[in-house]
């Protein structure tokens, strides 16, 4: 999986802040995510926010730790754990739990607060993933949210990575979203 690192290095060379739409093959999805995070936290050594709508926080942390990703550099915003949990979940050391992936306003506010709290000059936002957001929300709502988010990312001057599976059904929204992004990365 060295390919991911070299794609990132080649395509994003010289860019200090950017918004990249990463199109990922479903079979390589997890490995690609890990490699992108490795690139951001180890190679570039920058802290950031991981918005997970796909896998619960504890699963995600285990996966990342197994792959030797430094999770201490990341604030997690988890919009999936509460959906399947009957327990009342409170904010942990480095994770905020959102009620549901439908709560886009709450996700937006959490991201804004989290990004403001990190005082480093360079930071990243990793959104995992657009495809899962589309399962829970209407395409129009997601497009509006993504437009809001990408414009916010520009004001925050962060490195934004938006992950999406390459699916036939999501083609329209991917085309729409690629307009708002600086670059589309293909990790097939």
């Amino acid at each position, binding site marked *: 999986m060295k390919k991911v690192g070299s794609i990132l290095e080649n395509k994003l060379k010289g860019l200090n802040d950017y918004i990249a739409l990463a199109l990922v093959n479903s079979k390589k999805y997890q490995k690609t995510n890990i490699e992108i995070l490795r690139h951001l936290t180890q190679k570039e*050594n920058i802290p950031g926010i991981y918005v997970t709508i796909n896998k619960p926080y504890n699963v995600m942390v285990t996966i990342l730790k197994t792959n030797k990703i430094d999770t*201490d550099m990341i604030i997690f915003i988890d919009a999936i754990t509460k959906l399947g949990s009957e327990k009342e979940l409170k904010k942990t050391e*480095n994770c905020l739990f959102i*009620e*549901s992936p439908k709560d886009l*306003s709450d996700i937006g506010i959490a991201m804004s607060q*989290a990004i*403001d709290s990190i005082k480093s000059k360079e930071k990243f936002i990793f959104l995992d993933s657009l495809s899962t957001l589309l399962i829970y*929300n209407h395409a129009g709502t997601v497009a509006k949210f993504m437009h809001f988010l990408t414009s916010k990312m520009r004001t925050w001057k962060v490195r934004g990575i938006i992950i999406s599976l390459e699916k036939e059904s999501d083609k329209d929204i991917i085309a729409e979203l690629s307009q708002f992004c600086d670059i589309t990365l293909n990790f097939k």
Partner: protein
Amino acid sequence: MTELFVRLAEGALPATTVLILLYALLCIIHASFSLNALKKAKNELTSGKLKKFMGSLYITITLGFIYGLWNILLSIEVFQIGPDLLRLIISNLIVISFLMYMTYLAFLAKDLGDEFGFRVMGKKISEYVKDKKSKKQPL
């Protein structure tokens, strides 16, 4: 209603009634503007804690609106409501509900602060990254 304006113009209304009427009118005007603005903001939001907060704020302002309206109705004596005690009970019920909702709002705001506040977390991460960078670049 016309009789009220005539009495108002003639200065025949007691000063306290005029004052209550003025306060109630102000209350209604402010509440109407606030409710309108809040409704627009609420409609833009998706479900979640912020929407819940705005919903409760909406109810609180509505109670203020009702209180203003109630005072106007009493001042202009549109309808007679039983004994004074009943009027007093209704007035107090509205005020108490308003205060209860205010307290509920404060707790919701506290919840929002606890949930969405990342100040400590962000500071920790920033210090950790700074430390890591300084270790990577020895003097």
